[in-house]
């Protein structure tokens, strides 16, 4: 295969690698908080933002970001104040989000291929502007994690002690929800709403399998996230596969490798 074909897709590689590097570490914190389903629920709500964008004839991206961030904060609030089981709150949010999206999309008469591009993404056709936006947001997420990873670890691992030590726990939890919402929005054009949550959770889970420290698990998760995107994109171009599916399947192979390594070597 000619190398030139990959150069043609430089935007896809740039945005995808940035997304992969940022999504893995955020996924590690979500797993640690037993919150792996939160991004899945947020993708359903993000779909509402997309449909709302179509209905109002506005840009879907900012509206989706707004709706997703609000939903992330709402689910946290509901879980803390309403005394509802965490997975129940997530289940309600996901169901209502998708239902609202379907209604709004119907009202906007936008049941067409435009919706499908948000559901399944299409990383190979993104514009340079979208690629740089994804890169910028991913860098912002990584810099935030570099600054706050220990505090997020404390809150995720032992919230009671973190609170007792004077950390601003609520703010840190909001920060994690915000980072998750940002990743959902970046990922919807690249990987698609249906699969972006997998790119957050699977590389993080693979990293936790093989890491010998928490810091190492963050590095590994970023590495596995980027490897998933790179490997998936190469497979997609070589075998003419849908890129989002190939990327997530590749991450699944990495997880399987990590799972086997831990049980045989570590």
């Amino acid at each position, binding site marked *: 295969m000619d190398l030139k074909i990959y150069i043609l897709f430089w935007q896809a590689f740039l945005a995808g690698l940035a997304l992969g590097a940022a999504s893995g570490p955020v996924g590690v914190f979500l797993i640690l908080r037993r919150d792996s389903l939160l991004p899945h629920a947020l993708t359903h709500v993000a779909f509402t933002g997309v449909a709302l964008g179509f209905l109002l004839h506005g840009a879907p991206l900012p509206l989706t970001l707004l709706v997703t961030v609000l939903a992330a904060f709402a689910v946290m609030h509901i879980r803390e104040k309403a005394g509802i089981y965490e997975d129940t709150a997530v289940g309600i949010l996901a169901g209502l989000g998708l239902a609202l999206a379907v209604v709004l999309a119907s009202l906007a008469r936008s049941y067409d291929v435009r919706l499908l591009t948000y559901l399944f993404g299409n990383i190979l056709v993104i514009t340079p502007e979208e690629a740089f936006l994804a890169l910028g947001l991913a860098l912002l997420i990584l810099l935030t994690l570099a600054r706050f990873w*220990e505090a997020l670890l404390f809150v995720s691992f*032992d919230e*009671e002690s973190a609170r007792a*030590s004077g950390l601003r726990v609520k703010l840190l939890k909001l920060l994690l929800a915000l980072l998750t919402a940002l990743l959902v929005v970046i990922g919807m054009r690249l990987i698609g709403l249906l699969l972006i949550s997998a790119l957050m959770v699977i590389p993080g889970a693979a990293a936790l399998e093989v890491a010998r420290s928490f810091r190492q*698990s963050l590095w590994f998760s970023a590495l596995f996230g980027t490897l998933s995107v790179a490997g998936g994109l190469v497979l997609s171009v070589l075998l003419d596969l849908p890129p989002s599916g190939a990327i997530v399947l590749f991450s699944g192979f990495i997880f399987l490798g990590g799972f086997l390594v831990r049980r045989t070597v570590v």
Partner: protein
Amino acid sequence: MNPVIELEKVSFAYEEEPVLEEVSLRIYPGDFCALIGPNGSGKSTLLKIVVGLLQPQSGRVRLFGEDLSSFRQWWRIGYVPQKVTALVDRALPLTVYETVALGLLNKPVGKSEQAQRIAEALETVGLPGASGRLLRELSGGQQQRVFLARALVGEPEVLLLDEPTTGVDFAAQEKFYDLLGELNRRGLTILIVTHDIAMVDRHVKQVACLNRRLVFHGEHSEFCRHPEICGFFSGGHHILGHCH
């Protein structure tokens, strides 16, 4: 001498169920006080109020003479919550070093000082050289010591522990209480919630008995002179068997 912890007529209820009723308690520098009482007597609730995890419905709490609502010097207090070892998941690759380092988040120090303090804290709890080990690979007793190191690494003046030896075998409990005694002799003020009357009898200096209200607070020796209180709070035979 001013109290380091001062509760004045503190009341707390979970929804309609009162847990603490007008509890007043003072802990002074150098105290090693056990907070005992039957299940549901409000021991853990009281500790959570002291560290700001719960807000009392009425009454005042002061730490180091400052009202709890304005208190910000949380590094002066070390806290080991109940069942903390249950958080150690076999899927989590958290090292001992990383765990203890969390205790310095409210008192940031340079990297080299951080390493030195963590080494000292681990030395204090009898786990020198364990910093690179994974928490999940340690025994329950060792994990408990790591969490104690996390509470100590910020060099607090007061240590609060909520049933720290639950699920730990007798020998490890004995070593744990010996360690607390040693820390107390070095000047650390300790308030510990426990059900373990045998350990209280052997190691602590003061006893505070709760049953929604504070029924007794004083020297351990005085506590033992009240068999009716002993019996009421410990089912009789446990504590009476140990009181001198």
